């Protein structure tokens, strides 16, 4: 009843809005049951996890669908003072690149790992566009666990689309650059600039590796998708700027009637590499990995890469002419149809994989460029969707043989039928849609049911918040013949693309805490009796535990101005969702948030003498406000002895905890005595 009332209320609001001003499109009115379709009652769960790129935030955001509720922000390429990612010693190496630490990037395309062409819930990959990188996020912890930089690359946009068994994720570049990247006049673009298509081995966690880089002509490679089913073994990339313009691209790169789609036979490329046809070229790029048992990351610099020239591996790549600066490329669930999104085109062109293979076999070529054969448009074309709207960008597929294409300029989603190419339905979206996403829309069996529009412009959709507005997503029901608008929800950063999968695939695999007993962190402090301070020249190490509701030690004296203090704080809780935070007055970095069983290290160089309180920043318990302590910082050379005391209350708690944690009381009494002696020095 309440849901119906909500639905009625929504209709009334819609009617009032429509009556109160110039009428808008009728589709703005949601149908009666929309509210109940997206209502997830308190305590109940969403049907799907949806992973959205954060765009210029450098993060990934996780939303529940159909409610559109934000569940988590996962820091990937950007420092995240909210939990210390990129500030702590354990996580700083994740942001290393060949350019040094780059504390930000522009995330574009989330890509779920796949098995047999279906999202399997193991990992999420995402690209950094600005300083090309690919990250792996572990979906049992929702943490970034690996980042591989892509060398010979700029604008890692066509990334990190995946092959059906997660063999490879790719990174093709939007900005061609000289390879190696040296100082040349920009006007030597045509002879010096190259576009690299990198195939990154992805199925072994912690071992992402560039299998090969295919060196292509200096065009702009925009998006890519793997073949599947009958086209498994191929990868399709769109290019624009086959004009090879290097200035005023909006005009100069838009002149040709057709640009290309590059069809790469990656299984043949593998064979050519195995046959020694690739060259090993010098390169410099970072591979950053996160170790699960110590929960520390490390960065390695790699100094070479295998480079494959198309002419050294004949048949590895063909160009498919595709109208007007194509942006998106999407492969239908059967693998037969390859849909291009010519953003300036008046049709949606669809290529046929079967016809493409026939054209290759019959050598239906229309010349070649840089040694790469160009197939005849007519001989590879399966059909064109006529009058689809303006500015087709991306296409996703449902489970019933339909396709959904986003139209940036006419601001709508167009539903059309594969095979007949007829337009079935249109849904206006607000405003200027970029990507759209059907859950499982790139799988061999799409989940279907919904399409999410990711809109670039928000204008009047929400209460205004100054000149910069939130970005807007819209959830649309596609289970029936006609699309139904269900929900608007605001999103963070700029979600370019999203992927979603049934919650059941990952919900029950979540890590609830990290085992203290199994931690291999070099500064793990498992019990209060192991806590303490030590000095090594100008470096002071503080081993500290956090437990409800105190830190130990909680009084530290003998720090001098200019010391580098390493706070190694361990949350010794072994219980789900019991987190602690740690922050020090004037610390010039960030706070740290400690998950249960986790050790985090943050460095602090105090600049002036005084008393510096520290406290728990994550409300942990009834006595959270009491969870604090003091550091005394003295002038350099003051001679104050380094001591770490515990408060009277903490001391009795320590004695109790020590007693209880110890299988052999006498051993522990000894350790406690040692710790006490150390503290008293």
């Amino acid at each position: 009843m309440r849901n119906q009332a909500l639905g009625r209320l929504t209709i009334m609001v819609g009617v009032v809005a429509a009556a109160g001003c110039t009428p808008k499109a009728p589709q703005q009115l949601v149908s009666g049951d929309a509210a109940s379709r997206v209502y997830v009652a308190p305590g109940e769960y969403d049907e799907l996890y949806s992973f959205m790129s954060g765009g210029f935030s450098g993060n990934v955001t996780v939303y529940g669908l159909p409610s559109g509720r934000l569940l988590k922000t996962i820091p990937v390429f950007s420092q995240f003072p909210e939990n210390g990612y990129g500030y702590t010693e354990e996580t700083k190496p994740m942001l290393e690149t060949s350019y040094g630490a780059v504390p930000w990037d522009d995330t574009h395309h989330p890509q779920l790992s796949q098995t047999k062409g279906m999202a399997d819930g193991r990992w999420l990959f995402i690209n950094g566009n600005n300083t090309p990188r690919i990250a792996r996020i572990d979906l049992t912890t929702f943490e970034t666990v690996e980042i591989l930089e892509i060398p010979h690359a700029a604008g890692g946009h066509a990334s990190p689309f995946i092959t059906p068994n997660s063999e490879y994720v790719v990174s093709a570049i939007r900005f061609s650059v000289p390879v190696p990247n040296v100082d040349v006049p920009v006007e030597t673009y045509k002879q010096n600039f190259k576009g690299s298509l990198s195939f990154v081995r992805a199925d072994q966690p912690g071992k992402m590796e560039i299998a090969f880089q295919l060196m292509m002509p200096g065009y702009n490679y925009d998006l890519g998708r793997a073949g599947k089913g009958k086209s498994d073994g191929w990868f399709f990339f769109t290019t624009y700027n086959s004009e090879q313009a290097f200035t005023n691209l909006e005009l100069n790169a838009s002149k040709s009637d057709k640009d290309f789609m590059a069809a790469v036979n990656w299984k043949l490329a593998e064979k050519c590499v195995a046959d020694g046809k690739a060259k090993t070229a010098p390169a410099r790029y970072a591979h950053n990995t996160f170790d699960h048992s110590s929960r520390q990351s490390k960065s390695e610099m790699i100094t070479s890469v295998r480079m494959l020239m198309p002419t050294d591996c004949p048949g590895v790549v063909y160009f498919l002419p595709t109208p007007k600066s194509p942006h998106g490329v999407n492969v239908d669930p059967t693998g037969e149809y390859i849909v291009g999104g010519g953003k300036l085109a008046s049709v949606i062109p669809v290529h046929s994989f079967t016809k493409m293979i026939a054209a290759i076999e019959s050598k239906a070529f229309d010349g070649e460029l840089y040694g790469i054969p160009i197939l005849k448009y007519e001989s590879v074309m399966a059909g064109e969707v006529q009058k689809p709207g303006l500015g087709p960008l991306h296409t996703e597929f449902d489970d019933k043989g339909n396709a959904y294409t986003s139209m940036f300029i006419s601001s709508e989603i167009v539903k059309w039928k594969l095979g007949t190419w007829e337009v079935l339905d249109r849904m206006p979206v607000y405003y200027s849609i970029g990507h759209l996403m059907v859950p499982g829309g790139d799988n061999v069996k799409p989940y279907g049911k919904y399409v999410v529009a990711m809109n670039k412009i928000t204008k009047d959709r929400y209460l205004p918040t100054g000149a910069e507005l939130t970005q807007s997503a819209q959830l649309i029901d596609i289970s029936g013949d006609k699309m139904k608008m269900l929900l608007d929800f605001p999103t963070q950063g700029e979600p370019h693309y999203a992927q979603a999968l049934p919650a059941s695939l990952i919900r029950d695999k979540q890590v609830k805490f990290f085992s203290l007993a199994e931690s291999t962190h070099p500064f793990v402090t498992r019990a209060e009796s192991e806590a303490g301070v030590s000095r090594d020249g100008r470096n002071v190490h503080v081993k500290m535990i956090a437990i409800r509701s105190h830190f130990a030690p909680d009084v530290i004296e003998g720090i001098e101005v200019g010391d580098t203090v390493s706070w190694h704080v361990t949350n010794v809780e072994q219980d789900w969702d019991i987190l602690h935070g740690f922050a020090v007055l004037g610390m010039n970095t960030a706070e740290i948030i400690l998950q249960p069983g986790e050790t985090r290290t943050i460095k602090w160089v105090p600049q002036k003498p005084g008393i510096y309180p520290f406290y728990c920043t994550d409300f942990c318990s009834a006595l959270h406000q009491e969870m604090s302590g003091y550091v005394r910082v003295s002038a350099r050379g003051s001679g104050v002895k380094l001591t770490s005391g515990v408060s009277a209350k903490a001391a009795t708690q320590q004695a109790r905890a020590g007693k209880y944690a110890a299988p052999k009381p006498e051993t522990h009494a000894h350790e406690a005595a040692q710790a006490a002696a150390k503290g008293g020095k």
Partner: protein
Amino acid sequence: MAPRARLLTVLAVLVGLGALVLPLWEVRLGAPQYPEGLGLQIHAHTVTGIKPNDLQNINGLNHYIGMKPILPDAIPELRYMPWLIGALIVSGALLAARGMRRGLWVWLAAFALLGAVGLWDFWRWEHDYGHNLDMDTAIIVIPGMTYQPPLIGSKQLLNFTATAWPGTGAMALGVAFFGVLATLAVTGRGRTA
């Protein structure tokens, strides 16, 4: 007693061996912020959490009220309880195998006595944990409040609802006890009839 009755009785008694491996008693704790619950299992030889770390987490919570940590190694009963149960089952099985009715009646009486003493001892421990609080370290002090968990049934202790119930081990002992009782009653009636 007929051989078949003896065999059935022996089997019933041997079910009681389950008490050596299965939990004798369970105490479950639920609170608004613990939807997944916490719990203890009392075995003949030890006390464990129902989930990994439950015991540690319960001890962590109990420090707020000044309750002693539950240390299985510090509970002497847990050292000799397995031997007592073992002796009970072996002697019962021997008596049943030989069809010694009088002996089995005595065995039942001893069993009942041991059970009563065991429950009383368990209650005594609960009473000690619940009342003998360290007020110097207690953080939450509510005058007059004690925290003795129930022996059986449910009880509200601050934000926690504690529910105690016999475990599968106790049920195994029940099968042994009532198996023997039933055999004696049935075969007894048969002889007088």
